[in-house]
Structures are given as C-alpha cells and as structure tokens.
C-alpha cells in the first residue's frame, strides 16, 4: 500500500543533536493520535547536508523542504500536510527573511552546484533499512563484481574510473588494490579507515550515518578483488550513531547472505567486523591505525613496507578511507565511464567537504572535483556571515594550510591544493573572516598537534611543542621578529624529518599563515596588537563613556568584578584586574564596551 505522504527526518548527528530524534518520534505519535498512521510513513534518513538550517524535514511528494523544525511543529505538519494536503509555509526554506515564496529544493543555492555521488543516499533512504539501499541500486555493484567481473576486470574498471584515495593523499585506488592483490600471501585483509579526526570534519561520519551499506558493499567488492576474507572497519568510538548504523547494516547484510559464507551463492566468503578507535588522531594514519587494530600502541611505523605488502598482522592489506569506499559501490553499479565524466582530468569524481566556520550555510557539501573554492564559499556557502570580509579558508585541518582570497578561483584538485601549500586532506574546510586571528588559528592547530603527536619521532614530539611555545609567546605579545625565523626553521625541519604525515604537515598552518599574513604576525610582535581581538593578552577592553548609559549590566556580568560606576553614569574597567574574558563586551547592548 502506498502512503499518501513520506516524511523524511534528518538523522545526521547535527540534526539529531538539535532534537531531531524527538521530531521523528513526535511525528509518528501525532500521526497515530490524529488517526493517519496508515497514510504516512516517517523515515529517519542520513544527513541532508544543510546543517546550518537543521533540523531538516522533507515531505514527499510535495518536496516540501522544512528547515529549523522543532518537535512542536510535528502536530501541524501532520494536521496540515498529511490530513489537509497543505504545506506548512512558515517552516519552508526561504531565500531570505522577506521572501515568502517556496523555493524548490533544486533551486536552493546551497544545493545548486553540488553533485551527490558519495552522499547519493543521504537524506533519501532510511540507513537502517537494507531494502531501501537495495532499491536504490544497492548491492548491484557487488553482484557485478561477483558474477560479471573477474578481479582483474574490477581493477581495470577502477583504473578507468580514475578514482583516487579520498583520505587526502590521492593515491590511485586501483593501484593500491592491484598491489595488494598481487602481493604474495594467502591471508589478506580489507580495512576501512573511519578514524576521522580533523577538527571540523564530519564527512565520513555523515556518510556512514546516512549510507552504511555503501561501505559494507564496497568492502566486500574489495575483499573479493584482492582475495581477502576478512575486513575491519576502524571507527572512532566518538561516533556512536555511525557505529550503531554500521552494526545494523552488517547484521542485515549477513541476514541477506551478503556477508558470511558463500555470498549470494558465489562461493566467496567474506565477513566484516568493527573495531573502535580510542580517539587518537594519529590512528587516522594508516600504519598507526593498523598497529592499533592489532591491539598495539597506535604509533606509525616506517614505510615501506606499505600495507599493500605488509599490513595488518604483516599480511597484505588494502586500507581505504570511508569516502573512497563509498565511491566504489556506485562505480561498480553505474560503471567507470559514468564516474570518469565527473571532475577534472587527473582528479575524477566528487569530493565531500564539511563546510564550517564563518560561513552562512555551514554544512556537508559534495562537489565535482574542479569546482573552485569561490563557488564553494560564496555560492554554496552563501558567503561570509554578517557581511564580514573573507580572510581565508583552511583545508585539510591541522595538516593543511590557509588559502587566501587570491587563490579562490583555483579549481579544487589534489594537485592544486598541494601547490597552494595546503592539501586536500579528508575534507574539512573552515572559513575564516576578518575577525579571525591567524596567530590564534596557527596556535590552535599547533596545540592540537602537540596533544595528538604520538611521541614516537623526535621532530614531531618536540618540534610541535617548540612551535606552539613560540606561537604562544607571540600571541602573548612577547614575541620578537626572530621568532618567525625560528618558526620557519623548526617547521621546515619537522616537515622534512618527521616519521609520518602528522608531523610532516603539522607546520603547514603556521608556515602558510606566516607566508600569507606575515604582517598580522608582525603586528603582534611589533605593535603588541591583535587586530581581531582573539589574542587575549593583547586585547584591552574599555568603556566608551560617550556610549555608556550606566545600565550596569557589564558590571553585573563581570566575574572578577573589575567594572565600577554609579547608576546611569559611565562605567570604568580596571585594566589591571581585567581578565579579558569578554563578558562585558558581549553583554553591552549599546556597543559601549570596545576592544582595542
């Protein structure tokens, strides 16, 4: 029996954390209460991507795109749309506050330039239902790999597709598989790297949450191709929803005979297991991940030998990132030619990014390779918040560098980002505006690396700390010009000498900000000034007597307290005691508290 309406509730982590699950449950309850439970099916899907406007609810067949939905709205959605067939206008996405027109989903700016391959099922299917995945061509890729293609042909297909590793380095996937396939040994493994750890990145998380079967299917295809019978998904324990959905997917796949012995009667055996990471960033590095998988301390080991020759338990192993795997199933289903048409000559397909920071439309985006940064920031992202000025975009998280205004028109490819002193990384993209301080940002990323360095190799363990200390000194206003030379010296030594790419790229944010914003550093050093007001030690809060009306809210909020003044008289901040917490600044409704 067909339903009158289908209501899709976003089940991504972002929306879930904004009471998405409550919306889902309330919708079901309301449908029952209002006696229309047979008319409507409420489905929890994966991420719609438009996290800025979450929680998101989509109603079919009207294609109503409701944003910033609250559980309280459920009653109205059922009453109006399901019973009366009328859209709830106030919840519909609108281009701006003034407009009242419904915007078709395909016309929403945020989705305009996107092209969903990896996220094809996110926001479309119920990730906890294998049938919905199958209905969308799911497991047809596996079927082809099992019955239509030989392992040689699978590799050939991948080669034709031009797919490169989405973990950041861009190694041709077909070659990795081929090396592993040809490596001597009877026991081989497939490992999925789901240890997404960059600050601000959640592409892999959303992919698994929204479409876990695409990973399961691809890993089976990989196992079949290289001759492995066991696979592991190494996922951080901080992703409980993704883990849960993977578990459900694996269980369902087993029930359907897609995992286990004699898959689909092909005679091929393969099974999957999940291993939880304990939250070490370095375990996203493949050799460290494999060590951790073996139950050892997660520290990188020198390469070669590469995992393709000696990986998990010293056996040939394919280790691919979540996004890489998510591409495989669709390539196998739709064919390499279809895939190869997307993207640029050397960088095929699409890339997902987690767009965050000072941007209007933060969210999960997927664009064809070759899209420019400007398109992502200004067209998809809707530009900078509050009309501020764009300063830079950090790609590749703590391993990447800052990309500035003048490079915004570069098409995104593996090569172009590297040439810009940054890197593709796994796809975190943090937008900064004029209120961001590059010293502060460099310090933030360096602090992250100091904490996350495993401690094995000297340059990374020691160099990150030394650089962090110098950045701290500069941000405190105690820097001297030579410090910049020291930062460059240590940074370059770390880049050249570190064992793995954590240390090898840890200096990138610092080196690239020095390169592009040397003057900002010099302001901190020479003028003891932080233009953005982010470096606390350099900020001075003052009350503009002309604007202060003496309401006293600043004094009441001050935790020290160091603000004094008579009622209805201008107040004064005692600078000596001020801890620069900024409470007064945010409290003042009259703009009387100023940062200098």
């Amino acid at each position, binding site marked *: 029996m067909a339903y009158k309406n289908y209501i899709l509730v976003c089940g991504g982590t972002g929306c879930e954390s904004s009471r998405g699950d409550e919306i889902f449950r309330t919708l079901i309850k309301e449908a029952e209460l209002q006696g229309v439970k047979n008319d409507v099916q409420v489905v929890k899907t994966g991420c719609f991507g438009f996290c800025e406007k979450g929680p998101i609810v989509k109603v079919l067949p009207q294609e109503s795109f409701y944003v910033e939905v609250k559980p309280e709205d459920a009653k109205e959605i059922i009453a109006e749309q399901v019973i009366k067939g009328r859209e709830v206008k106030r919840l519909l996405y609108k281009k701006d506050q003034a407009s009242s027109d419904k915007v078709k989903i395909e016309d929403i700016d945020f989705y305009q330039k996107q092209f969903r391959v990896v996220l094809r099922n996110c926001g479309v299917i119920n990730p906890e239902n294998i049938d919905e995945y199958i209905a969308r061509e799911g497991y047809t890729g596996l079927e082809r790999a099992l019955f239509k293609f030989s392992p040689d042909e699978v590799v050939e297909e991948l080669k034709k597709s031009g797919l490169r590793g989405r973990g950041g380095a861009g190694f041709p996937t077909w070659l990795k598989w081929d090396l592993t396939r040809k490596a001597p040994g009877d026991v081989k493994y497939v490992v999925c790297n789901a240890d997404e750890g960059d600050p601000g990145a959640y592409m892999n998380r959303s992919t698994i949450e929204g479409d876990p079967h695409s990973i399961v299917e691809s890993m089976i295809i990989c196992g079949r191709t290289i001759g492995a019978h066991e696979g592991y998904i190494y996922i951080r324990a901080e992703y409980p929803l993704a883990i849960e959905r993977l578990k459900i997917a694996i269980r369902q796949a087993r029930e359907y005979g897609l995992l286990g012995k004699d898959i689909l009667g092909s005679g091929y055996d393969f099974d999957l297991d999940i291993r939880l990471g304990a939250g*070490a960033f*370095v375990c996203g590095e493949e050799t460290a991940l494999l060590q951790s998988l073996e139950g050892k*301390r997660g*520290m*990188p*080991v*020198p*390469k*070669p030998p590469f995992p393709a020759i000696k990986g998990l338990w010293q056996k040939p192993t394919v280790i691919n990132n979540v996004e890489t795997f998510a591409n495989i199933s669709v390539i196998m289903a739709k064919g390499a030619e279809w895939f190869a048409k997307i993207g640029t000559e050397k960088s095929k397909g699409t890339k997902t990014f987690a767009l965050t920071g000072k941007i209007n439309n933060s969210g999960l985006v997927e664009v064809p390779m070759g899209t420019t940064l400007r398109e992502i920031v200004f067209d998809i992202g809707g530009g900078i918040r509050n009309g501020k000025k764009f300063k830079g975009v950090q790609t590749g998280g703590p391993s990447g560098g800052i990309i500035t205004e003048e490079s915004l028109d570069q098409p995104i490819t593996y090569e172009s980002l590297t040439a810009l002193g940054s890197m593709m990384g796994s796809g975190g993209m943090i937008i900064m505006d004029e209120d961001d301080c590059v010293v502060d940002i460099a310090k933030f990323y360096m602090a992250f690396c*100091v*904490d*996350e*360095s*495993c*401690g*094995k*190799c*000297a*340059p990374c*363990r*020691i*160099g*990150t*700390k*030394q650089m962090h*200390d*110098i950045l701290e000194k500069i941000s405190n206003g105690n820097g001297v010009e030579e410090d910049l030379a*020291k930062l460059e*010296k*240590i940074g370059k*030594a770390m*880049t*050249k*000498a*570190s*064992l793995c790419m954590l240390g*090898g790229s840890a200096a990138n944010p610092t080196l690239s900000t020095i390169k592009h914003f040397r003057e900002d550093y010099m302001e901190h050093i020479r003028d003891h000034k932080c233009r953005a007001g982010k470096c606390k030690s350099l900020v001075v809060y003052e009350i503009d007597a002309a604007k202060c009306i003496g309401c006293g809210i600043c004094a009441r909020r001050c935790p020290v307290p160091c603000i004094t003044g008579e009622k209805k008289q201008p107040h004064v901040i005692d600078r000596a005691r001020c801890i620069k917490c900024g409470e007064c600044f945010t409290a003042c409704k009259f703009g009387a508290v100023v940062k200098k």
Partner: protein
Amino acid sequence: MVTLTIDNDSSTVPEGSTVLQAAKALGIAIPTLCWLEGLGPYGGCRLCLVEVEGASRSGFLAACSTPVAEGMVVRTSSPAVRQLRAEVLEMILSTHHADCFNCRKNGACDLLDYCREYGVTKIETGRETRHHRPDTSHPFYNVDRNKCILCGRCVRVCNDLQASHVLDIAGRGQTAHVMADHDDRMGDSTCVSCGNCVSYCPVGALLPKPKVFPGEHLVQGRTRTVCGYCGVGCELDLLTRGNAVVGVQPAHGPANEGILCVKGKFAFQFIGHPDRLTAPLLRKDGQLVPVTWDEALDEFEKRLRAAIAKGGPDSVAGLSSARCTNEENYLFQKFLRAAVGTNNIDHCARLCHSSSVTGLSKTLGSAAMSGAIADLDLADLIFVTGSNTTETHPVIGSRIKRAVERGARLIVADPRKIELAGIADLHLRINPGSNIALFNAMAFTIIEEGLVPQAFIEARTEGYAAFAAFLAGSGDPAHAWSPERAAPICGVEAADIRKAARLYATSKAASVCYAMGVTQYHNGTNGVVALSNLALLAGQLGRPGASLNPLRGQNNVQGACDMGALPDVLPGYRKVADPAARAAVGKVWGVEPPEKPGMTATEIVEEALEGQIGFLYVMGENGAISDPDITKSMKAFEKVGFLVVQDLFLTETAALADLVLPAACFAEKEGSFANTERRVQRVRKAVEAPGKARTDLSILADLLGRFGLPLADASAEAVFREIAAVTPIYSGMSWPRLEKQGLQWPCPAHPGDPAHPGTTRLYTESFSRGRGLFIPVEWEAVAEPADREYPFLLTTGRLLYQYHTRTMTGKSPGIERLAGKARVEISLRSAQDAGIEEGDPVRITSRRGSIVAEAKVSDRTGDGVVFLPFHFAEAAANLLTSSDATDPESRIPEFKATAVRIEKAGPGTAAVGAGKAGKGR
C-alpha cells in the same frame, strides 16, 4: 643484488637491504639513536636521514627504513643533511636534561657524541625542562626519565628481544614516557633484571647503580669473551678499568644475538671480590694457612705419590669442572690418566645430564643438542619438558618466548606452573616422576592415530615393530600405554596427552628442549630414552627446527664432557675400553691411558665413605652443597686421605680440604668453552687473577711437569692444538678459526680442505650410531614416593637470579637483595592444610635431614609438591635429597623427587643434620 651510489661511491648490496646497511658496507657511518641491530627499523630518532635524489616529500629519507633501489643516488653527509641532523639533534637535546658534567654516561653517550660531531652546542629554539623524580627502586640500575630521549630502544629490547614485555611507552606527545608495567616503579615491576635496556640506552636515562657498579662509567678496556654462567654461551664484552671488571655489555654472539640475562649482565662482582683466594692454603695443625706455590705443589706431589704407592692409581680420583675451559679439562683428565694412571675422573655432568649421555648414546649414538639454539626460530612447535628455561637458560627462554610470539606452538610438561606454562598452548602439569608414562602415552597416541611418518621410520630407525608392540601392551591391552593408563600416573587428562601428541607429531618442525626434570631421576636414562623414542617416532629430528635438545646447565659442561672428563671416555667420546682410541691418545701423550673405566662422581663419594680414596683432586666443584644427601657427602670428603680443592673461593668443599689452590676465573684466562649447542667459543683474558691465584691451566701444566709429562708450550692455544690432535670432533678447529666465530662440532679436519664449517644440526643424514634405535622402556614410580609420614614430594632446581651454590652470584648485592634467601614453593591448599602463610618459616624434613626455609605460597607447584632451590647452604635442599636411589646406568641421583613432610617452624629455627660445618671454619 642492487647497485646504488652513496656519496659518489658505488655499492652493490643484496636486494632488501636498507640504505643504512648499504652505507655500512661501504664504511660510511650514518648516525642513529633508535636503531638496534637485530631488530627492524623503528624510525623514531630521525637522525639517520639522508638525501635521496628524487625522493618524495622533502627529498630526505630515513636510512634505517629505506630499502635500496637500483640506481638510487644517496648523499649521507651533504650540507643539507648535516644541517637537518643538527636541527633534529637540537630538538632532542632541548628535552634532555643535559647535565653532562655530572652524568656517568659522559664518554659513552651517543647523544653527546653526535652533538659534538654536528656542532650542536646550544639550544636556540627553547628548552623543555622535565621534572620526573629519579626512580632508584631497582637493585641494579637507576632510571632518570629527565634524560630519556624516547628513542624506544629499551622498550623494543624488552619486548622484541627479551620478550619480557615490562616496558612500553605511555602517554601521547608531551606526556609520552617509558613506563614499566602500569607505570610502576622499576623495582616494583615484573622486570627480570636482564639489564638489556640498560645495555642499549644511548644516553644516561638507564644507568647501572653507581654504588653497586662503581667505575662502570670509566671504561678503559673491552674484552670479547663468553659468559661464565650457564650453558647458553652468550658472547659478551667485559668492560675493564685497570685490573677490574667494571661492567658487562652484551655482544651479538650466535647464541644470544645481543642480549644477556641478569647473571651475565650484572653478577660479575665475584671476579675481583675480596673473598677470592689469593694464596695456596695448606692445612697445618687443623688450620688452613697460606703457603707458597712451591710448598703447596711439593705437598701435592708428595701426597699424591704416597697415595699411589699405598693404594695404587685407582685409589686416586679427580673431579674436574664444568666451569673451567676445554684446555683445563683436557689437561685435568690427561693428568689423571697419563700421570696418575687412573680413569677415576668425573665432573658435575654426572649430576645433570649423565642420563642424557647414557640414554641418547644408546638410541642415537650421541648425547648433545641435536639442533642449534637458533634452530628454535625455525620450529613450528616447541616441547619444553623438565626445563624451567626462562630461569635456568634465560636467553634461550627469551628465544622460546619470541618463537611463541611469532606463532610457534608451545607445549610445557612440568610439575610446576613455570613462566613458559603461562604462554603455552598446553601445560601438562605432570606429577614428578611420571615422564616415562607421559612420553609412552604420547607415542601410543601417535601410532594409534596413524601419525607415524612411515618413510622416516623405515629409512632411519630400527626396533619400531618391537616398540609398537610394547606400547600396545605386548599382547595384553591392559598393559598398553594408552593415555587413559598414563593419565592417573601423570595427574593430567588423557585428552590433553592426546592433544600434546597430535600437536607434536603433526607440526612441520618440532623441537624438544629438556633438562633436569627428565634426567634427575633414578631411572633418568629411561626417561631420556622414552623421549628419544617419541622424537624418533614423530620423525622430529635432523631437520631445520626439528631437534631434540638437552639443555646443558653450565658454561662448559659440554666441553668438559667433550674433553673426556668422564670415567669411561677419552676426549671426543672415544671409549677408554677401545684399544685403538687408547693407542691414538697414547701416541700424542707418550703414555697410554688405563683400560678400565673409572668411577663416577657418585661412586667416588661412596668409595670415599668406605675410606677407599687416598687422594681426591677437586677442581672447581662444590660437592658439599651440590651433591645429594650432603650429610653423607661431607662425611665422604672428610674421609678422603688427602683432599685438594682448587677454586676461586673457600667454598664449603674447600673448607674441608687439606690443600686449597687459588684459581683464576673465566675473566682471567685464555681458552675456550663449548656451549649447549656444541659451539666452541673463545674465552679471553680481561684482567689478571688476584694475588697469587693462577689459572687452572698453569697449575695443571706444572703438575704434569712434576710427573714427567711437561708441556712443550704451556699456552692455552698450544693445548688446544693438542686437543684438536686427539679429538676427532674438534680436529678441524683452531684458535685462528675460533677467533672470528665459534664453531659447532663435529668439525673434523678435512685433509686438503681445512675449513669444515662445523655442524649446525646433527642427524640430517644419519644418526651417530647409524639408525635411530627404539628401546621400549617401562615406567617406574619414584624411588621414594610420598607416604603418610612424608606426604609431600620435594623437587629441587634453580632460580633465575642464583647460580648453583652461590659462590659467584652470592657476591652480588643486587642478586642477594632479589633472591638472597631460600624460599620453599608450596601450593595454596597445601599451605592452608599445614597452617602456613606466605613468609612463614617452614620446616621441611626428609628421611635424611631437616631444614627451614621461608614459605612462598603460590600456584606454581601443585598440591602435594613442594619446590626448593638448591643454591642455599643455610637451607640446603641437598640435606634432604637422597643418594641411595641412583640410575643404574648413569648413576645420576634422584634430585627431583624426595618424600618430605612440612610444618610451620618456630622463628629462629635453622637447619639440622648439616654435619660438620668444615674443618677450617
């Protein structure tokens, strides 16, 4: 082979070599701090970076982990490389507590040396001061984490070579540090004190304790030699200052490959100990008084001639020493055979592996380890029975642990839950004295389940049919050696016996390691034969990784046997009864040895008790503690007409002597030892013997001269040449050859081609006697089973920290702190039944004596079994053991099973029945 260019020099090295290895081959030194020979690349210190043309990333690669490639162009010391290294060094130095003036590592500190080489004198980038409290809790070494550079060497040695898994790195980034167990203090951890971490620490983070090892940091000399403790034969360097040994560093010998155990590393204080004998002592008016060598040897000669005159040559006997060199053992037996004219020569092998000699000689024709130690690396299964390997042969123990970690199976058959039992696939906790039942039942299973390699049986063995019939009960199924019959005897499940048999027989290559737990029974020979039957039946012999290995206990017990310090064989195991052998030896000596085989050590004691021994010459043995039933053996030593003891210290036996001759220890002499794998290795002199002490070799040379057999050249090398001349299995060896690396016998001389490479494994083509012989052997109960009066079975053995009668290890304060007193191991239930708690004094009484030891309550021993180490004179286990029950063939006493009773003793109680404490004390 791959050809590459390093610093404009072309190098051709095997494929798979690293750039570091290739550079080394060209004599180019690349600095390293984390790299360790024998382990794979670690890649932590980043000091070995080199410039490689066309390399990805930055153009720099770590030499330690970069494999060579054809046409590769490498620069190891370009300005860019040197600058980068200096920058890395500066970083490392910035976190290191560079207290170089006060640091005892100064002079041997790799970090300091490299900083000098690279001109790193100050830190411009910011110093990181750490404030760890020094950890001084360990008896042998101190830990200063403020100096640690996290190179990871200690961690890797502890885990990957020593396989102890005590050390690891904890914490991330700035908090990363080396920890013991769960961040315990080192002294409270499970550290086994092997000291290998200390040996390889490149800086001063791990240093031997200054008070225990004074002068360890002021090394002037370094002498490569072989360890003087157990039979593993670890090569090591003695570090000397002046005439003092101040430290020990492991070497990469074939047996130890870079590691040592606690005794080899730390227990060297006996060498220059003030208690060393420095002058001959002669008993005058009941007191031992110092005399000159002339007077001592005059007395020796006079009393010996008198004894021969009175009772004939066979009233004279000599006990040689497994601690002395091959050359000394050779001269000792030559002295008795040629100068005195008796075959009454024996040594302590009588008490350890004599049953291996009698047993294996019958079945295989030769009694030594059939494989090499390194062969254990090739085994798929290791069967350890009656050997507490990790304590008695710790370095072999580590190798077994490593084998298990790389995937080899391990079966342990032992009454105690020894360390190896904890990692074994199967631990058969058999009752003492049930070996034969176990081995027979395993053999039964192999036949029953059709696992016999028929081709091997037919081609290589004899007696199979009779053996199979015997196992089947010789027509009477009730007598068949089924696991069901053996299970109650052994005290283990029949299913486990079957499982062990299956694992052993179906492994591609299985090695057996056994020791005293098989041999020291009144039917020890049969025990060895039963084990040999098992190995033959499964065809687990003569292949890489398939071997039968009696682990020899003392540094040169193999050599002492090789040299004929035995009553029935001449050097090279040629029978004294064989006229051809006697003639061959006689030709070199000028005198033919007597025909009649002499007395064994146990028989010598019996004869002495009867007053039949007129003169006994004891070289480096302490029978007063190590013999069974020492009340009796002490009495025997007292009854000897004239007792000469030649030793390092005034041992319990020396205290009974009429003449004491001060001897040099292993560090004070040149010579050779043969280790347990038949490998003859050079022993080199590092220091002079104290006072007037002399090497056993020079004393024996003097004595031979006095009895008309002077040596033309009394150097050890010349003696070795004579050994090679009369010992066929040694005939291809010479000191120049041994200089490079030890050789495993048989190493026969090849006429025209002198360089026989030695023999890694025996029996690859045939057994020493031709075909391997099956000899059916019946199980018998122990001679002294537990009964109502003596309800426990006492079994004896060694501890990791102590060695034999503690004459050497007892001089090391750290050893004494860790294992300074006798503790009796008793099971929890047995302890509860007897009202005994951990640490209580326990009285242990046998039919022969009674001693008191502290209770160590654990699950190591089973109920009804107690274990006592035999090291301690004050709680001498051998007051309890019996010398009545000896093996009829090998005369080995039953050390491993004595019926005793135990009770809680009052405080302050001590041993009784110790006989006389010694004439001179």
